[in-house]
């Protein structure tokens, strides 16, 4: 099982969501973060310039079974891209195990609705 973390532009969220849905990824979690990166935008607050390079981004956290990994990454990659600095990153890491709280199912099963896939 893999965890895919993607830091994307807030404005690209709807498109990424749609792309993920089309790729069969129906479940994920996301929240607002601030990213510090190259796309600095200088701010001025009451006469003080402060180079806050921090810009609002959305973090997606998606847990997928291994064979879903590729299409997840590709969907995000494609949908979140604008080609300009600041598009964000995708990170993949290993997850040992998963549980579905509602049923107590463990492992890969926790990630899909059994009846639906069969």
């Amino acid at each position, binding site marked *: 099982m893999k965890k895919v973390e993607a830091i994307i532009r807030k*404005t690209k969220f*709807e498109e990424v969501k749609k792309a993920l849905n089309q790729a069969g990824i129906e479940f994920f979690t996301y929240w607002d973060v601030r990213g510090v990166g190259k796309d600095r935008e200088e701010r001025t607050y009451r006469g003080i310039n402060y180079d806050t390079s921090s810009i*609002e981004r959305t973090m997606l956290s998606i847990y997928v079974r291994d064979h879903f990994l590729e299409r997840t990454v590709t969907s995000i990659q494609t949908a979140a891209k604008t080609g300009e600095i600041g598009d964000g990153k995708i990170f993949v890491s290993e997850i040992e195990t998963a549980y579905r709280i509602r049923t107590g199912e463990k492992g890969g099963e926790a990630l899909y609705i059994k009846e639906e896939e069969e």
Partner: protein
Amino acid sequence: METISISLDTVWVLLATTLVFLMQAGFALVETGLTRTKNTGNIIMKNFLDFAIGSVLFWIVGYSLMFGLDVAGIVGFPDFFSDNSYNKTIPDAAFLMFQTVFAATAATIVSGAVAERTNFEAYILFSAAITLFIYPISGHWIWGGGWLSQLETPFHDFAGSTAVHSVGAWASLVGVIMVGPRLGKYNGKANAIPGHNLGMAALGVFILWFGWFGFNAGSQLAASGEENAKMISHIFLTTNLGGAAGLLSALAVTWIKYKRPGISLSLNGALAGLVGVTAGCDVISPSGAVLIGTIVGIVMVFAVEFIDQKLRFDDPVGAISVHGVGGILGTLLVGIFATKGGLLYNGGFSLLISQLIGIVTVGIWVIASSFVVFKIIDKLVGLRVPKRVEEEGLDLYEHGETAYN
């Protein structure tokens, strides 16, 4: 006239002025509440600038164009810095102040409609134009002794359903079309872009309602004498019932249409009802106010849907539907519900026709002049912010400051 009467009238008009002034805050809250976090600072600034620029320009130029010596029924004779007396009863400064806050209201309506993608400089220039001559000229026709007030059956727009609200709405319509929809609003289908804070929007509506008592009842410009006392009381009642009916009817429509009582459209309903009774608040009965409010509230919801989804004009706060549809219908219905001269009260069609003439000609004037002004501004500084700025928010890129930290 006795000096004590003058004093009381002055007090009345000045306090009405403060109430109408606070409507600027109401508009700012409604507009920021119904848009996104990233543009909050920008909208606030637009609302402050509307008022500040309007206060200065209307005093210098607009006031005389509107109320100065009538020139061919079209415009008042320009008289910079207005040291003439355009009102016989209350002091000049009181009348000017009252008219200033009205002018600023017309201007501020546009800021919501074109929110979230308009170039800040472009907006300021347009806002200047509206208080400088667009609003004063049609205002002259209606309130300044111009041709609409000289019709055999004079056009009746007591507190400005047309003179103020429709003017703002027509200009909004032109602006919305010329600036174009926000990114991501229409891609194949019409998408919802929910406002970021309905609590703000609701407070804004309460404040607007509060200010509307000054807007309508202040337009009597007098409070002394039994007739005036009765009239301003009557206006309070019709104004309030109009707002209440607009809220209830819009709520009912959303409940039926969308299965659930919608929040932001109900808020718009209250405003639409208030806009609706503004033209006739002095000549309609309380029941008439309820009926007008109800009709306007219902139509407004359909108008929002039609404009947004069929016409695909992106008006984030519903300004065109609230102030335009509300303003037109409200003005027209005076011809039907006016207890003197209205169709329902055996007054025949003459008032209705005058109302129609007023609505149409003001519409044409504002559309035409706004179009030209927007075109010029587009050439000068461009109407729209770059894609990147719109995506990341106008606050950050245009002001270098964010509203929430």
